[in-house]
């Protein structure tokens, strides 16, 4: 796969209108931030073109007083975190390893441990620049906290991968750095049933529960308290008492949690590329959903890591990519979860919520996910993607 690394929006627009449109591709161009060193399985064999935004990595505008920063889509998350922290500010978001790009993070919109308190990725994107697949350079949003002018395209961009265009810059909402941040690791038998137990916990700014389903492990949780010193200290006492009363072991992690939080030890992503499925059960179905998952995964040959965000009812399942790549379709357990008859039609992406998003993984898995959506939403999606692409793109792009 040949990878092009343009240094400006204009160069990207030119690449799109010349190189890309001249070629008749039977596969998608691949847009990426930093991870092209290890293209996702199934892609390297296809006659594809690669576009990397690595060279669009500058800080474009930083207004600490206004709690906003604009950066190139190719900037590393770790670089962004350092810039923000130097000004005493916070981007309370986690979910991607630090060696990913800002663009990749916005385009895949992973769930994170702070989503319950500070909101998901979609709340943090105030403006962006998108080079459309017909070469038009478009700018969406303004550097302000509230904006209802026109359609809210920033929301559409979050999690869209590169289906609408190539993200070249992003303006993000920042938060004042909390005066005190403490992180604790919880472990112990009572955490086996993470959702109900953690739902009773004292108020936490960040919470993620990790386990390997089907392996009869008790699981462990990582929690963050953030705020004024007196409040954090009082709540630390409450948390200790709460844990003690339930036979849960609590240990404080040393050092300030970095920003975004580093992937905890043992997380599959650390070892290289991975596959990730996100299941949004919502808080309502989290407990039963986790039980189903545990049962279904125990019959799956592969080894999965699970992250649960009790505040939002989201579960992320992570596996080594080589496992996921073997699969020619979405794993049977996934389909079983989505179509669980116990929850009837409510379990499908309806007003009742639970739904599956495939964050990373082979193309077959993405195609399977597409089939799980309702025909109606696929139809509107196709119409809107065409509105952006200008032409009905013969390829399907993806930010992987």
């Amino acid at each position: 796969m040949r990878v092009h690394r343009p240094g400006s929006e204009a160069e990207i627009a030119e690449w799109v209108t010349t190189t890309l449109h001249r070629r008749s591709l039977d596969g998608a161009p691949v847009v990426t931030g930093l991870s092209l060193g290890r293209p996702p399985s199934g892609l390297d064999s296809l006659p594809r073109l690669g576009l990397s935004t690595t060279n669009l990595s500058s800080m474009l505008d930083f207004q600490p007083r206004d709690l906003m920063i604009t950066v190139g889509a190719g900037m590393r998350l770790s670089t962004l975190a350092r810039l923000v922290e130097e000004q005493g500010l916070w981007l309370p978001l986690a979910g991607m390893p630090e060696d990913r790009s800002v663009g990749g993070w916005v385009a895949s919109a992973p769930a994170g441990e702070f989503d319950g308190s500070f909101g998901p990725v979609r709340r943090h994107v105030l403006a962006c620049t998108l080079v459309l697949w017909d070469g038009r350079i478009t700018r969406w949003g303004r550097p302000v906290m509230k904006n209802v002018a026109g359609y809210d395209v920033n929301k559409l961009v979050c999690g869209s991968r590169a289906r609408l265009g190539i993200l070249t810059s992003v303006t993000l909402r920042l938060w004042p750095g909390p005066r005190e941040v403490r992180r604790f690791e919880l472990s112990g038998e009572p955490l086996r049933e993470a959702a109900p137990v953690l739902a009773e916990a004292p108020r936490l700014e960040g919470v993620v529960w990790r386990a390997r389903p089907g392996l009869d492990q008790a699981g462990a949780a990582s929690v963050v308290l953030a705020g004024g010193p007196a409040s954090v200290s009082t709540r630390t006492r409450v948390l200790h008492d709460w844990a003690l009363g339930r036979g849960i072991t609590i240990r404080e992690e040393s050092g300030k949690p970095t920003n975004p939080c580093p992937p905890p030890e043992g997380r599959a992503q650390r070892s290289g590329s991975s596959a990730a499925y996100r299941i949004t059960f919502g808080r309502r179905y989290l407990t039963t959903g986790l039980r189903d998952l545990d049962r279904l995964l125990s019959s799956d040959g592969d080894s999965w890591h699970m992250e649960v965000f009790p505040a939002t009812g989201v579960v992320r399942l992570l596996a080594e990519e080589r496992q996921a790549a073997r699969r020619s379709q979405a794993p049977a357990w996934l389909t079983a979860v989505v179509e669980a008859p116990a929850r009837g039609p409510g379990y499908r992406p309806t007003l009742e919520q639970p739904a599956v998003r495939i964050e990373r993984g082979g193309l077959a898995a993405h195609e399977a996910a597409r089939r799980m959506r309702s025909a109606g939403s696929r139809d509107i999606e196709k119409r809107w993607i065409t509105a952006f692409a200008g032409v009905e793109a013969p390829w399907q792009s993806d930010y992987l």
Partner: protein
Amino acid sequence: MSSKRALPAGLLPALRAALHPGAVIEDRDRLLVYEADALTTSSGLPDAVVFPAGRDELTRVIQLLHEARVPFVPRGAGTGLAGGAVADGGVLVCTTRMHRVLEVDPLGRTALVEPGALTDAINEAAAPHGLRYLPDPASSAACTIGGNVAMNAGGPHCLKYGVTTDHVVALEVILPDGTPLVVNHGEDGGLDLAGVFTGSEGTLGVISRIRVCLAPAATAVQAFLALFDSVADAGRAVSTIFEAGVVPVALELVDRETIAVVEASVFAAGLPLDTEAALVVECEGDPEEVEEDLAEAEQAALACGAREVRRARDEQERLAIWQARKKAYGALGRLAPDVFVQDAAVPRSALPDLLPRFAEIASRHGLRLANFFHAGDGNVHPNLLFDRRDADQVDRVHKAGSEIMALCVEAGGTITGEHGVGTDKVRHMALVFGPEELSVMRDMKGSTDRSGLANPGKLLPDLPTKVSA
């Protein structure tokens, strides 16, 4: 661009047959009630108004209108400030009879509601479970959740918790061709379609059901007033409070003109009349947190030249402060028959510079200005007072309004922070979007509403679509 014309024969009988008795209005006298929303300077008369009593009736109405190719305008309580719920011909589809809170799910912390439910009604239904719906538009006692979602409404307490879009879990919309569609934020691996339907002002269809997030009630809440001798100092204090590491739940600014009218009204809260600007700062959380956040914020206000900070001594006093802020709009009626409610958002740090310039623009046009707004979000409401019977005043109001919009955009801001575009801001859209972006949005609209029936003339300026390839 009036779409006024006679309705096709057979449509009204078909609508009547599809709806409960009395759910179709067509007499001119009764239609007059619906000639405007809360933007009273803009008006239009629908050919008929219909009141579907449930989603099946609503779906049927939209199907009939689509078959007859008759444009429609969705409307909740008509409290919108952008002229978005006004029909110039066609059929006004009122959701006020779809006002039920269908379900409160305490475990999932969500509620399933019909679009015509009052925003406050969701809170009433959630309260017994110790839950609440966070966005709080000032009109929450009168406005509907469907209208809130259509306009992506804000409110004073959206500062910390986010605006309507951040509290919508999923939506069911009836597309302009009468097809129902459930959309979410892309949890199903698709695009965040709900993120676009929210704030689309009825131009992509009508919302038929909404699942909203609920949040636990706060254990402690406290507020203080900071009084300033200069508006610019108050503006500066806004940024400084955030720099102190505090995110209040609400941070509002009220200026001298507003204080004078509110204090003369039944909503008087004891604000000193010689104050140039007052900040209302509210924090909530657990008691320690509220205490230390308020202390930090008070210090920040004093450091910016506040002559006094005054903490609400009890709940009654806190509520009085909020009444003063929320009822300011109505109280302005003491000064002039009409208020042109302006809405724009700017980077917070631009406030100290912009506030005196708003005053300068108003005085140059011989108009009175009253500011009361969501300072913490940089969401300004520089309201112009006037009498619409005086054509010259109306003309000056429009000129001053346009200058204020241009000034806000120049400062990096946007033409509407929470009220929406409607018809009022259509002419300003080109200030914040170029031809490429407008063309993409027109194509989104055009491909969703192929017959151009859903709320025509709103949100998007009338520009030729791009030449298709």
